[in-house]
């Protein structure tokens, strides 16, 4: 993975546990004309990669950086899989839109890189994958959709290994968009907090290597038991105020996993820190988790480095795996005074010692896209 708080899995995990703050003033493009000019920006890609093999596109380079870390974690570079049987499934909200900005600013040769599936194909080439290369774009739920589709490729025997995940970059296009919607806060990001006033955007790429259970070997971090999705059919940008879409997605994921909401040990929440999202998500979680909702620990990472859009759901899934491996749940950075309207057991202040076996990850996106994952720790 590559994030504003760490460009490898171990650094990321340490940063989450110690409460590192990845929010800063954006330096890579002009922001002076915007209401809010801060976010979770990665100042420099630090991994030693031969960039001559990668298109000059930040989106592609973030993905390749994350893949490089994935290969290190897997202990094999290139991945020890028949290239014909290696698939890539990538989620993104913005694809190569920054290349569109650059192309329209006078570099027309960049247009092909502006297509939303271009960075995913660049990653496929870098990995040497000759299996399916798929891009999904369910807005900020993309990273979850990608994992679900990746699992489907394994189930159907279309691939033996799948590199799946999500990414998005901070660029002027998206910052201007969210700034104009007045969704961005000038304060700090405070998921589930009484004083929360909006989100900040971040950039990241996060990938997992999916294998069938029998072929996963000893390095397995966990198992993706279920994935569910649902549409709100409510509004082009605002979530359903009753959270029926995210509730349906959670129930679908639990059904596929063949588990009940009462069995969930941990929730890696979407928790954007917008006034609307957190209340809606909390209410939906209470309905799904049932009587145990008030004792199931919940975390949102948005306070640490902002909303990573297409990467967010994959990062949230990875958090479930890391919590299970290390027996700790990081605190929700920015949360100081829990909003009574978000009556959940949000981990606050310091990490909590707990080793979740069964975790639920939730994602909501523009266009009424909802997705949920059920993950079992190894």
């Amino acid at each position, binding site marked *: 993975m590559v994030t504003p708080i760490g460009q490898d899995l171990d650094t990321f995990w340490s940063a989450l546990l110690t409460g590192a703050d990845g929010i800063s003033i954006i330096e890579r493009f002009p922001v002076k004309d915007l209401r809010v000019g801060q976010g979770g920006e990665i100042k420099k890609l630090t991994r030693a990669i031969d960039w001559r093999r990668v298109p000059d596109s930040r989106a592609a380079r973030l993905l390749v950086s994350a893949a490089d870390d994935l290969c290190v974690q897997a202990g094999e570079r290139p991945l020890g899989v028949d290239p014909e049987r290696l698939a890539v499934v990538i989620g993104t*909200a913005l*694809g190569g*839109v920054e290349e*569109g*900005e650059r*192309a*329209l600013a006078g570099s*027309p040769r960049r*247009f*092909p890189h*502006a*297509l*939303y*599936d271009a960075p995913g*194909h660049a990653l496929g080439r870098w990995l040497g994958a*000759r299996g*399916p*290369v*798929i*891009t*999904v*774009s*369910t*807005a900020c739920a993309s990273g979850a*959709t990608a994992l679900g*589709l990746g699992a*489907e490729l394994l189930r*159907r025997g*279309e691939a033996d290994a799948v590199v799946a995940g999500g990414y998005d970059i901070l660029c002027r*296009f998206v910052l*201007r*968009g*969210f700034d*104009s*919607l*007045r969704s961005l806060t000038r304060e700090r990001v405070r998921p589930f907090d009484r004083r929360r006033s909006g989100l900040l955007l971040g950039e990241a790429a996060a990938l997992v290597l999916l294998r069938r259970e029998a072929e996963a070997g000893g390095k397995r971090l966990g198992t993706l038991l279920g994935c*569910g*999705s*649902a*549409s*709100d*059919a*409510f*509004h*082009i*940008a605002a979530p359903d105020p009753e959270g*029926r*879409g995210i509730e*349906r997605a959670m129930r*679908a994921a639990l059904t*596929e996993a063949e588990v009940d909401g009462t069995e969930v040990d941990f929730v890696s929440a979407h928790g954007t820190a917008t006034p609307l999202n957190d209340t809606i998500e909390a209410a939906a979680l209470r309905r799904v988790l049932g009587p145990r909702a008030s004792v199931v620990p919940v975390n949102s990472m948005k306070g640490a480095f902002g909303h990573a859009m297409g990467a967010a759901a994959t990062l949230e899934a990875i958090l479930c795996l890391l919590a299970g491996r290390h027996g700790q749940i990081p605190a929700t950075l920015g949360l100081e005074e829990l909003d009574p309207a978000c009556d959940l057991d949000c981990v606050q202040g310091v990490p909590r010692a707990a080793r979740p076996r069964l975790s639920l990850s939730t994602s909501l*996106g*523009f*266009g*009424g*896209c*909802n997705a949920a994952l059920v993950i079992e720790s190894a």
Partner: protein
Amino acid sequence: MRAPAIRAVGLLSGWGEGAASVPLDAKAAAAGRAVLEVERPALDPERFRRSRRECLMGVAAVHLMLEDAQQGPEAVAGERTALLFATTAAYAPSNRAFIESRGGSTYFPYTAAAAVPAEVAIAFGLTGPYEILIGGAPATLRAIARAAALLEAHACDHAIVLAVEVFAECADVFARVRRAPRVPLVETAACLWLDRGHGTIIFERRRGGTGGDRARIGEMLSCEPLATLALARETGGEGPVAVAGTWRGETARLEWSARPYRTRSRVA
């Protein structure tokens, strides 16, 4: 995998409405036009006042599909209908407009690839499983296969597979990047209504190869397989039906073991 039945189709393209409007030779029928445009569909102007043309095309295609099935929107509304959307670049005009500052805050949400299916879901009350794939014809073929899997798993009772492509607003860009524009770009919105069917369906993909029938229908990118399936319904016979498409050096192919159509075209 158990095959999905095709209950109805909706096809709106630069050639007109329905399969009957599609010519036998795209290049000849285009008569030198590089882009065959679809006019902004005349849907409720108040309700859709902010919607972009590509969104309205998607809504119009689903209306045509329901008309084809002789059903009202209530037949697909609710959580038992999945919506699977595929596109190559339907988001490009909205992205461009926003970059060039022709759209304000009201229009930013329409820059998302999810905008078209969102408008369709809202218009028809589709609240079931929801996926959006980006790519050319293989993305749409995969969306059909994904719908088949969801139907087989009883995650839904119906599935709508929708694809939309628009070209007019970015015609200059396409003119610059297309290597061999032998056929015109044909704006299209197309969809299938799928139910659980009989027989089996096989999805295959491979590097290289060719597929599709661009010489006849023009360049429709992700819409091509759906247009091809709409055209195939017009021919008789009970044998297998196969459709293929290529994008970025990959060919995907779907084959039904038996004819999948539940209805004949109403214009046939």
